[in-house]
């Protein structure tokens, strides 16, 4: 058997405050964007199912947090990101992206409005240095200070139908009153000023909390959440399950669906891009693209019909064998019990139910374009 991955020397990698905790509970560690991160603990499928049916806990402290503060902070955020941050209320967050002047993706981000002159941008780990450099450069023209606070925060994600019940034991904040993509500051496990956000990257209800990054605090909060979730059979989850969960929910991943070679029209993320707001990076290029007609390729969701798993980088072909695109993410979907994939194809081949072939190690295996998201969580009963 060939080795699936060769871990880089751990010493060259960055570590979260929970590194020792992960290792002590037997997590398999991998190099993720230069970080030594847990890919799975007891097993990826069990972790995935725990989040869909109960609750799971993720260490996502590798994510970056960049703060823009000052009288023109809003103008700076507006200039560097594609969504309309002027629509955010204090205590609200939204999905957005940093774009290149060509209208392609530098990164996808969450923007939190902390106060009228204070915004927090949560960015991906692997892109954090270039994001910070780009934001800092472009914010120069505004009366605004840019700080990279990533090393000051540990971020934990509590996700799943029992996430609320689990976290509620550890705080007096009424979590049920926090709407999706809103946040509050509160005390959690006795730690003051924790940012508690009703967000996530799994397709389930849940929370992401930002706590001080010292090892003692982070380890204690991690353990208290596991203790609080014990009655729901909470499990610690690795980045492996995080990836399959987000894929089932059709959420894009930087470096896969969105890159410096893709634009919003191709990804179908137009609804998060407000071309009519004041000037922002990439706006002009995107307007030109829009005038020039629709995108030349579109992101579609596919389900394998024949036996096989279409994975990242595999060619997408017509049934006649002509290559028309590439899979950006592909995997077995543990909850749906299907093999699913996302990838780009020309618009002429992007209609629902179109049958295609994914070339799996030299063999054409049939797949079908299906509606997205692959998985949508059941509506909460009133």
């Amino acid at each position, binding site marked *: *058997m060939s080795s*699936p991955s060769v871990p880089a020397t751990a010493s060259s990698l960055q570590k979260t405050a929970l590194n020792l905790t992960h290792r002590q509970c037997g997590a398999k560690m991998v190099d993720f964007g230069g970080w030594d991160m847990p890919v*799975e603990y007891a*097993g990826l*499928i069990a972790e995935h199912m725990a989040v869909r049916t109960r609750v799971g806990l993720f260490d996502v402290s590798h994510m970056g947090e960049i703060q823009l503060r000052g009288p023109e902070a809003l103008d700076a955020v507006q200039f560097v990101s594609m969504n309309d941050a002027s629509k955010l209320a204090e205590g609200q967050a939204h999905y957005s992206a940093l774009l290149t002047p060509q209208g392609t993706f530098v990164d996808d981000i969450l923007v939190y409005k902390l106060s009228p002159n204070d915004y927090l941008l949560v960015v991906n780990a692997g892109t954090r240095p270039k994001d910070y450099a780009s934001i800092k450069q472009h914010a120069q023209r505004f009366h605004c200070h840019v700080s990279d606070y990533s090393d000051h925060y540990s971020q934990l994600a509590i996700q799943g139908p029992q996430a609320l019940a689990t976290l509620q034991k550890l705080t007096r904040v009424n979590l049920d009153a926090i709407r999706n993509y809103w946040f509050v500051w509160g005390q959690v496990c006795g730690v003051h000023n924790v940012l508690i956000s009703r967000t996530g990257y799994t397709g389930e209800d849940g929370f992401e909390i930002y706590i001080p990054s010292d090892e003692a605090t982070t380890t204690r909060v991690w353990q208290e959440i596991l203790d609080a979730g014990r009655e729901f059979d909470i499990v610690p989850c690795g980045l*492996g399950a995080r990836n399959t969960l987000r894929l089932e929910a059709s959420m894009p991943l930087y470096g896969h669906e969105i890159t410096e070679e893709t634009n919003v029209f191709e990804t179908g993320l137009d609804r998060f891009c407000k071309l009519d707001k004041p000037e922002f990076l990439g706006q002009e290029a995107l307007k030109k693209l829009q005038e020039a007609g629709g995108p030349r390729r579109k992101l579609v969701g596919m389900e394998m019909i024949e036996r096989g*798993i279409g994975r990242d980088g595999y060619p997408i072909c017509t049934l006649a064998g002509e290559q028309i695109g590439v899979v950006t993410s592909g995997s*077995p979907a543990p909850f749906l019990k299907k093999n699913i994939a996302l990838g780009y194809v020309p618009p002429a081949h992007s209609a629902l139910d179109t049958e295609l072939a994914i070339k799996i190690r030299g063999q054409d295996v049939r797949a079908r374009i299906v509606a997205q998201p692959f998985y949508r969580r059941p509506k909460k009963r009133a």
Partner: protein
Amino acid sequence: MTYPNSYRYTREHEWLQVEETIGTVGITDYAQNSLGDIVFVDAPKVGDTVEAGKVFGSVESVKAVSDLYSPISGTVTAVNQDLVTAPEKINTEPHQAWIIKVQMSTPSQVDTLLSSADYEKFISEETNA
């Protein structure tokens, strides 16, 4: 988990059990553990030939694909159909969940494979590398 001392092993983490001229091939506990949850096995067909040291199929976990290397040369006489519907048996009983059986063309190749003691030494070095 212990590695049966009646089996032989490859450095690519396959095991071989020999009964007369038939060799049975699977992957080791070490292999299944490093792969994680196995969801798919791609094996050759009965009658196909396999060659020592060459790829004869693949196993897939949720997150990765790994090639399978044949410990010996010969002709495939049986393929474990259980693994089509229950590939996870490789995780739960790696040393029983065989993948193929081979009519060996060159039985002396068996002597070039690792004993269980040598294999255990090999993986302990790989783990500590």
